[in-house]
C-alpha cells in the first residue's frame, strides 16, 4: 500500500496532502536563511491514537517523522524527506486544575489561545512566548523557548510539570506525577529521574509531545511599564543584576519583563539601529496594585542609582493590547537570531564582542543588518537571554549564504565566550554539539536506545555519523 493511502486510512483523506505546493508551505520556518526542507507528505492527526499508528507505520517503512507546531522557530528545527505531522489540530484545553495550579492542554494549542482561555478564568500561564499567536505548546517545549516574561518565569521548561509523549516505538508515557495513573498532574520531580526534562529542548528527537501540563498563576491585576537609560552598558547590567537579585520566584519583585540593550532601536522600531549605551526597556511590573505600587518605588530607587528615566515615550500605553503586538512586530523583524543565555553582568562584554564581529564581517556590505540589539532580556535567576539578531535581504542569494556564515561565526564566538544556547536546531548544532564531550555522547546513546530505527527527527541534535547530512544541501 502506498504511503499516502496508508496515512489516509489512519487520519482520513482530508488530513493528508502530498501536493507539491503544500509541501512548499511546510518547508520553511521563521529561520529564513536556511534552504527549505521539504517533507514528503503532511498529515494532520486529531488524536494520539492516530499519531501512534503513524509512528508504527514510520517504523515499518523506515520513513522519518517530523512533528510540526507553529513553525515559528528561529533555528531550523526539522529535517527533510520526512512525514510531517502537523500538530495544530490537537489543540484542546483538557483541564484547568485550580487545586494543583496547573493547566493541561493538547500540545498543538498555541500559546496565545492558552493565554486567553486562562485569562477568561482569571489565570495566566505567566510565561509569554514571543510568537504568541503561532508557537504551539509542544513545539516550544521541544525547543525550550524563551519569552517576553522570562524575567519572572524563566525559560519555558521551568513552567512544565508533566508531559504526555509518544515514544519512537509508539509507546505512550506520562512524566512527572502523572506517571502514576492515580496521581494528579501537580509535581514534576518524582519517581526518580526528571523524565520531563528529557523532552524539554530535545528538538523532538526522543518522542512526540501530545499533552502538556504547565503551572498557572493568578492573573495580575495591573501592569506598570518603566524605562531607564544609563551612561554605560555596565551600569545598565549592574542595575538589572540588582533587580534580579531581589526577584525571587514568590513574593519578590514582580518584574515580568526586562530588556537590556546596547542600542535604542528597540524603542524605535523599524528605524536604523543606533548604538547608544545601555537602556532598560520595557521593564514591566505585574501583580496586585498595592504590590506593584510598593515595588515600583523600590525599583525606581535601584534604577536611579545609576540611570535616569527614559522620557519621550508613552509609558502609559495599554500594555495588554500593545505589548503582544509590539513584541510580535519586533520579532517579525528578526530573521536569524543568535540567542543564548549568559550571566547578566557579562552582557556588556559579550555584546561588544558580537558587535565587533558584526563590524569585522562587514555584514552591511552583504545587506545583512542587525535587528533588535546586541543585548537581551533578563531571565529569572541572574542571567540574560542575550540576542544578536540579524535581518538580511532575502532577494540576494549572497546575503542568505553570508548570513548563515555569520550565524555560524556567532555561535563559535558564543561558545568560546561561555554562552549557553537553549534551543539548537540545524542552524546551530554543528557548532554546538561537538563541543559538549561526554554529555553529547550520552545524548547519542539515549537516542540510539529510544529510537533504534532513527525515525524521529533524524539528524537533529544528535549529528549523523557523516556530519554533512545535517548541513543544508
Amino acid at each position: 500500500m502506498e504511503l499516502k493511502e496508508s496515512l489516509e486510512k489512519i487520519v482520513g483523506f482530508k488530513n493528508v496532502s502530498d501536493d507539491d505546493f503544500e509541501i512548499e508551505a511546510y518547508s520553511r520556518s521563521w529561520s529564513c536563511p536556511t534552504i527549505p526542507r521539504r517533507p514528503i507528505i503532511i498529515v494532520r492527526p486529531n488524536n494520539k491514537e492516530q499519531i501512534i499508528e503513524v509512528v508504527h507505520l514510520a517504523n515499518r517503512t523506515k520513513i522519518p517523522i517530523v512533528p510540526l507546531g507553529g513553525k515559528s522557530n528561529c533555528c531550523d528545527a526539522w529535517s527533510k524527506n520526512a512525514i510531517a505531522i502537523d500538530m495544530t489540530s490537537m489543540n484542546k484545553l483538557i483541564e484547568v486544575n485550580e487545586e494543583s495550579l496547573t493547566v493541561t492542554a493538547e500540545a498543538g494549542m498555541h500559546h496565545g489561545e492558552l493565554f486567553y482561555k486562562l485569562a477568561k478564568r482569571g489565570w495566566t500561564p505567566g510565561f509569554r512566548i514571543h510568537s504568541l499567536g503561532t508557537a504551539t505548546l509542544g513545539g516550544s517545549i521541544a525547543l525550550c523557548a524563551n519569552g517576553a516574561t522570562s524575567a519572572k518565569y524563566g525559560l519555558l521548561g521551568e513552567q512544565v510539570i508533566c508531559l504526555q509523549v509518544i515514544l519512537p516505538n509508539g509507546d505512550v508515557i506520562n512524566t512527572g506525577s502523572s506517571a502514576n495513573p492515580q496521581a494528579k498532574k501537580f509535581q514534576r520531580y518524582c519517581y526518580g529521574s526528571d523524565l520531563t526534562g528529557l523532552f524539554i529542548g530535545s528538538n523532538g528527537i526522543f518522542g512526540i509531545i501530545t499533552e502538556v501540563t504547565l503551572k498557572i498563576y493568578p492573573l495580575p491585576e495591573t501592569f506598570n511599564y518603566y524605562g531607564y537609560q544609563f551612561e554605560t552598558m555596565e551600569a545598565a547590567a549592574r542595575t538589572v543584576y540588582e533587580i534580579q537579585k531581589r526577584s525571587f520566584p514568590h513574593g519578590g519583585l514582580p518584574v515580568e519583563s526586562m530588556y537590556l540593550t546596547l542600542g535604542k532601536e528597540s524603542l524605535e522600531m523599524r528605524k536604523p539601529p543606533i548604538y547608544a549605551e545601555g537602556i532598560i526597556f520595557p521593564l514591566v511590573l505585574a501583580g496586585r496594585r498595592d504590590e506593584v505600587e510598593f515595588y515600583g518605588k523600590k525599583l525606581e530607587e535601584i534604577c536611579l542609582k545609576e540611570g535616569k528615566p527614559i522620557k519621550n515615550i508613552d509609558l502609559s500605553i495599554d500594555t495588554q493590547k500593545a505589548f503582544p503586538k509590539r513584541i510580535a512586530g519586533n520579532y517579525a523583524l528578526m530573521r536569524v537570531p543568535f540567542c543564548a543565555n549568559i550571566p547578566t553582568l557579562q552582557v556588556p562584554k559579550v555584546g561588544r564582542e558580537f558587535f565587533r564581529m558584526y563590524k569585522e564581517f562587514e555584514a552591511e556590505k552583504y545587506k545583512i543588518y542587525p535587528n533588535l540589539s546586541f543585548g537581551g532580556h533578563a531571565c529569572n535567576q541572574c542571567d540574560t537571554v542575550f540576542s544578536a539578531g540579524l535581518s538580511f535581504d532575502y532577494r540576494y542569494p549572497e546575503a542568505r549564504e553570508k548570513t548563515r556564515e555569520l550565524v555560524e561565526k556567532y555561535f563559535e564566538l558564543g561558545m568560546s565566550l561561555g554562552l549557553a544556547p537553549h534551543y539548537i536546531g540545524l542552524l546551530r548544532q554543528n557548532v554546538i554539539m561537538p563541543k559538549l564531550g561526554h554529555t553529547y555522547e550520552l545524548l547519542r546513546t539515549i537516542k540510539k536506545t529510544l529510537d533504534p530505527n532513527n525515525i524521529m527527527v533524524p539528524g537533529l541534535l544528535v549529528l549523523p555519523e557523516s556530519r554533512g547530512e545535517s548541513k543544508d544541501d
Partner: protein
Amino acid sequence: MIKNKNLKKWKNEVYSCVNCGLCREQIDYKSETYGICPVWEVYGFDSYTGRGRINIAQSLLEGRLEYTPRLIEHVYKCLLCGDCKEHCFSRGLHIDLPEIVKAMRRDIVDDGFELDSLKKVDSKIRKTHNVFAESSSEGTKWDVDLDLPKKGSILYWSGCYNKFKYPKTSRSVVAILREANINPAYLGEEEWCCGGPQDTNGQKILSEELIKHNVEIVKASGTKIIITSCAGCYHSLKSNWPKVIGELPFKVVHISEFVADLLTRGKIRFKKPIDRKITYHDPCHLGRYEGVYHPPRDILKAIPKLQFVEMLRNRENAWCCGGGGATAVAFPELSSEIAKIRIDEANSTKANAIVTACPFCKNVLINTIRKIGNDMEVYDLPVLIAEAMELEA
C-alpha cells in the same frame, strides 16, 4: 507552462515575509483568539494561510514549483478578504497578499488556464456586460416607474446585483435620496459591470475594457458624485478605476457614507422605530479595503429602538462572508462553509438579523441560511434605512 510575469512584479513584497505566521490567528486581549484566514479555518493546511501562499509564491519565483491543475484551484481558493494583510507584521509592511494572489491569477489567465466556472462568467460578461448574463435592458426594469434621468450631477450606481437580484435595494436608495430632495441620475443599460469581478478573476484586459466604457459614460453624464450601494462596486470605482484611468473627475461615495452625512446635517430622519436586535457584517470591500467602518454603525445606532450588537470579529477583524475572491462562483461549498461560521457568530450575539452593506455578502449569507435552515434574517442597509424612514421602495 505558466510564466510568472505578473507575480515577478511583487517580488519585493513576496520576499518581505519573515514567515512568522501571525497571519494565521488573531490575538486580542480578553477575547477569544480566532482564525484570520477563513479558508485555512476550513481546510487546515498551512498552504492556505498568508505565509503559506507567500511560500508558494517564492517557490514559483525560484522555479522549484510549477502550476498544476490543483495549484491553480488553490490560487482561486482565496477570498482576497485582506484579513492576512491587515494582521501582517512583517517589517511593518502589511504585505499585500490579495494583490499577490491577483497577480498569480493574472498569470494563470494570461497563459490560458482560467478555471472553467470563471471562464463561463467572463464570457457572459463579454456578451451582456453584467455578471448575471441578463439582457441589459431587463436590468433597467427596477426603475421603470421611477423616471430617473440619464444625466445629472449625482448618479446612482446600482451594480449588477442590485440591478438584477436585489432591485429593492436600488429602489430604497432612490427613495432615500428623493426624501432628501435629490433625484439621482441612473445610467440604465449603459451601466456595465464595474470590472471588479474580472479584476478578481485575473481577467485584467476585460476588467479594463469595462472600466474604460463606464468612465466614458459617467463623464458624459456630467456626474460629480457617484453613489453606490454595492461595496464591491464601491471599491472597484474608487480604487480600481483610477489605476486604469488616472484621477477620476467625479467623487465616489458609498450610500452609508452619504446617508450618515444626511443624518448629521438633519436632511433626513428616522420615523419608525425598529425594535430588533441587529448586528452588522462588514463587507471586506467596504471595510478593510476602503476603511468605511463608522457610517453604517452610526446609521444603525440612530434608528429608534434598534439594539445594535457587534459580532466578535468586527471592523478590520471582520470575518469574510465567504463569497469574496470569486469563491462563491468557483467553490460554492467552501463559500458556504465560511458563511456558516459567520452566521454562527451572528447567532451567538442573539441578534435577530444581520445587516450588511453589500448585496454580494447578503446573497452568500442568505443562500447559506437557507441551506442550513437558520431563522436569521439578512438585510441590505438601504432597505432597513428606507423602512425606518417609512418610505415605499
